[in-house]
């Protein structure tokens, strides 16, 4: 009996140790969250969501300034990144998972791993060479391409592992009733892996949405709303992570505060997409 009791005691010691570790990991996260909210909260206002930033003098003259151009710009650039990366990323994931014998498979795997491990700033450089140089100007589009390079390998990997989780027997069952291979993948495997695909996409999105480095010489940044709507795509565009940096290194106290407010918005967007990812995962477990 004593030995059983001592085992329970040891079990409890280990449990307390694990809980303390978890708390230790979470403390910095809560400090960051708390600090950002405390610093930025007073700068959250209606103007922040409706006015553009303009030059530093604008605020000094007492005119209302905000980050509406940054918020819209972030949405535009992120949506372009999503539209570009989803078809390519899922396509690559299907290739990796479903055609292991294809000659292009190992090449794709190496390329994908390289892209995944490449520093984000180099992805910006890649988009600079591919889009900014030929088009002759910084643009929202090039920013979208740069972020697509961030999302693509994550989506491809997530797609691959989501599809690999579907038993091979389902594919054989589809083939055995005379379905072509692509039809089996499209109508039985991908729907079955839907939860994994959505989760992978949301994680990729959250990752890309927080990147500033790839945008420095692609979407470039902008203090103003564009004159014409095409400016969102073909002109320099402001984004939250990059604006946050620019505001933080500026010499103006008011801009520092706006930087904290931008951080709150960015954190909210990223937290929302991770929360959505968790929600989808939980949904799966209940089935």
């Amino acid at each position, binding site marked *: 009996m004593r030995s059983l009791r001592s085992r329970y005691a040891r079990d409890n010691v280990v449990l307390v140790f694990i809980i303390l570790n978890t708390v230790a990991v979470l403390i910095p996260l809560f400090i960051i969250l708390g600090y950002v909210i405390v610093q930025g909260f007073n700068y959250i206002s209606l103007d922040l969501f409706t006015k553009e930033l303009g030059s530093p003098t604008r605020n000094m003259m007492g005119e209302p300034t905000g980050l509406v151009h940054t918020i819209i710009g972030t949405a535009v650039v992120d949506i372009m990144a999503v539209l570009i990366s989803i078809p390519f990323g899922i396509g690559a994931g299907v290739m990796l998972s479903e055609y*292991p*014998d294809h000659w292009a498979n190992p090449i794709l795997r190496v390329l994908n791993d390289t892209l995944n491990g490449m520093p984000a700033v180099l992805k910006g450089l890649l988009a600079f060479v591919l889009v900014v140089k030929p088009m002759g100007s910084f643009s929202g589009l090039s920013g979208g391409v740069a972020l697509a390079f961030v999302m693509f390998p994550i989506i491809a990997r997530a797609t691959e592992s989501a599809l690999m989780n*579907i*038993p091979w*027997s*389902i*594919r*054989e*069952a*589809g*083939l*055995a*009733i*005379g*379905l*072509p291979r692509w*039809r089996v993948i499209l*109508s*039985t495997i991908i*729907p*079955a892996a*839907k939860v994994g695909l959505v989760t992978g996409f949301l994680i990729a999105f959250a990752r890309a949405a927080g990147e500033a480095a790839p945008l420095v010489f692609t979407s470039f940044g902008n203090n103003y709303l564009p004159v014409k709507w095409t400016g969102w795509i073909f002109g320099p565009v402001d984004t939250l992570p990059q604006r946050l940096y620019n505001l933080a290194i500026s010499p103006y106290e008011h801009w520092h505060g706006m930087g904290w407010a931008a951080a709150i918005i960015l954190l909210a967007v990223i937290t929302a997409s991770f929360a959505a990812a968790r929600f989808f995962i939980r949904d799966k477990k209940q089935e």
Partner: protein
Amino acid sequence: MDNVIENKLRLETIGLSVFYGENPGVKDVSLKIYDKKVTALIGPSGCGKTTFLRALNRMHDLTRGAKVTGKALIDGQDIYDPKLDPVIIRRKIGMVFQKPTPFPTMSIYDNVVAGLKLVGFRDRKLLDEVCERSLRQSALWDEVKDRLKTPGGSLSGGQQQRLSIARALAVEPEVLLMDEPTSSLDPQSTNRIEELIGELKDQVTIIIVTHNMQQASRVSDYTAFFYIGSLIEYNKTTKIFTSPDQKRTEEYITGQFG
């Protein structure tokens, strides 16, 4: 084996071998399968009976490093003709697997008609008819007719296997390959599937792999005994189970090994 040529020939293999890398899983098997008969493939684990079965509808096409040599013919047509789309072969030669394989996201109805709906058949009335006919054939209709829209995965194991059979029958195959279809089922479900095989053989040619010798003797007209990748003996089931020609067949059937 002279007394087995009285029926119409449907499928034939001539010197068929299946290699995994360098190793042959099936060695030089020549076998004639007769129309609208049940042929059982028996033998100890790893003897190549499933490998042989999967060669008949080109399931090895997807297996990395698998290679098939020799000939496999259906109605005289070469199954491995490089100009022939394997999809066409698999429409003719359906397959039911060891474990039930309902498509995870589909309803019972969609599972049954998948082979038609997903290649473009949209006629609702036709699909309804096919669904009912196939589920009746697989003796599942009465149990599921009121819940055709519920997920296929919600059925019990035995029902899922009958659903898999219904799905295979929906595309009206001429030959049905069954790879140990009852090995994961309880005795009652096993009975139902054995009855089903008896009812189906008027319409389709069935080749069944089984570990269960009683099952082979109950359901089949012909039996082939495989051992270490080779076909040892092939004859009418009654002959194999009463007076086999080969010593090894007799030893296996009487439970001395395997």
